[in-house]
């Protein structure tokens, strides 16, 4: 019995070392307490409970990571497929398709390069350790890849629909790459050279470069902006709370799907654009209200109000961007929503946040859906 107890204690000590620092103390606590438990079966059961705790916490941690990595692999495969398809199925002789190939490549390059470019600052990663952030990041990146696939499929049916990529222009593409480099590097270079410069002046150069890139190659610029936005919103440094990400993503999906359903009926087509605008505003507003309400109290009413306004705006932005991305994937003609969606979402979300900002602070009882420890319902 003693030998078995000794073995379990050793296993618990080693297993505790595998847990992240925030969880390790709990396994060590069980081990430290074991000395106070009567020797024999009670102590053995106590240590076995500690091993169960370690396995459970470890499994939860690993499950999240494994699912995220599998998702990342799937997104990488989707991106590779988009690139391969653009070479495989597009008419090689058509110079217009080269533009779309470049668009696909730019989107994929942004997915690969942006996390590396800003790795020190952590602007684009690593992903925040939450289910909402991981899901939004994977789904967003998959949607960008899906957009590339949709563009490639349009190329294989050239002449159908209003989608015309225009002839390929090497100087324009090179200028766009230079402008992108300037937009990414200008602020860091400016801050290093003129540390006391006005922050707004430091942002002016990348802003101008980004705007010029948008004018020269709008879809490439949008692909980069969307990838950067998705990575930034879900990184550990993101100002967007998990609730804001979740509320925004759900509202964006809820906005795009009815439009998809209505588009099948020709009698609604005339109202479709107006419907899209109204629906995006409305749902972004709801997302803003939800995100603002879910901001936990800070003790300072003014601080709480500002946090609610900020989260409302961010949730609206996420909702508008998600709606725009999904609609563009479903109907390439809705490409205007890639720009209009986030703008409408920001307006709706800010309004929703403002509505909820002065809502009386309520106590939030602790709740969880994990392990059946807590059960929360409305």
């Amino acid at each position, binding site marked *: 019995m003693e030998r078995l107890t000794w073995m379990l204690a050793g296993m618990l000590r080693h297993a505790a070392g595998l847990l992240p620092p925030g969880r390790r103390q*709990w396994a060590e606590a069980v081990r430290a307490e074991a000395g*106070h438990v009567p020797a024999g079966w009670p102590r053995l059961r106590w240590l076995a409970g500690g091993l169960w*705790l370690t396995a459970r916490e470890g499994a939860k941690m690993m499950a999240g990571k494994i699912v995220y990595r599998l998702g990342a692999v799937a997104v990488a495969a989707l991106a590779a497929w988009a690139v391969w398809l653009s070479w495989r199925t597009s008419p090689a002789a058509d110079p217009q398709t080269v533009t779309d190939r470049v668009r696909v490549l730019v989107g994929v390059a942004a997915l690969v390069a942006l996390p590396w470019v800003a790795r020190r600052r952590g602007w684009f990663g690593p992903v925040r350790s939450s289910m909402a952030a991981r899901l939004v990041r994977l789904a967003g990146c998959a949607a960008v890849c899906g957009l590339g696939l949709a563009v490639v499929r349009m190329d294989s049916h050239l002449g159908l629909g209003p989608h015309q990529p225009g002839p390929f222009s090497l100087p324009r593409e090179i200028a766009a790459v230079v402008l992108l480099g300037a937009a990414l590097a200008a602020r860091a270079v400016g801050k290093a050279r003129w540390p006391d410069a006005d922050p707004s002046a430091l942002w002016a150069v990348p802003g101008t470069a980004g705007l010029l890139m948008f004018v020269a190659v709008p879809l490439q610029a949008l692909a980069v902006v969307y990838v950067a936005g998705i990575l930034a919103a879900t990184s550990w440094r993101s100002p967007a709370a998990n609730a804001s990400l979740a509320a925004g993503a759900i509202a964006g999906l809820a906005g795009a799907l009815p439009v998809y359903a209505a588009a099948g009926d020709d009698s609604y087509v005339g109202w479709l654009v107006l419907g899209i605008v109204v629906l995006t505003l409305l749902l972004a507003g709801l997302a803003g209200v939800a995100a603002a309400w879910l901001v936990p109290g800070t003790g300072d009413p003014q601080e709480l109000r500002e946090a609610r306004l900020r989260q409302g705006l961010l949730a609206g932005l996420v909702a508008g961007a998600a709606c725009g991305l999904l609609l563009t994937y479903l109907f390439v003609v809705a490409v205007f929503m890639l720009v209009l969606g986030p703008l409408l979402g920001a307006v709706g979300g800010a309004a929703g946040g403002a509505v909820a900002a002065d809502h009386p602070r309520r106590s939030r009882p602790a709740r969880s859906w994990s392990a059946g420890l807590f059960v929360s319902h409305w």
Partner: protein
Amino acid sequence: MSRRAALSAQALAVLAALAARPSAWRHGYDLARETGLKSGTLYPILVRLADREIVQACWEEGEPAGRPRRHLYRLTSDGLATATAALAAAPAPAARPARPGRAAAPRRLAGEGP
């Protein structure tokens, strides 16, 4: 729309034990004896309660002779309010700590959803 949170019988038993002496630091074995919960049930509950800042945890100060330092727990001020409200709202049998050596049955409380 009012939101109500119900806790499992085991979590309520832990809260009841901690709320009985809210200012005192309690250790795991003490709580296990009082609630009748096994370590594999008690500690996951303490982890969740600490994650939600209902319970604060710390290591015993100093280096006691002949034994390792113990991990100690007590309710936070918000946690005391949450525990009081949860225990008041819970049906009496569930709020009562289980008899020593016997864990409370893992069942949902009356009034919970499906």
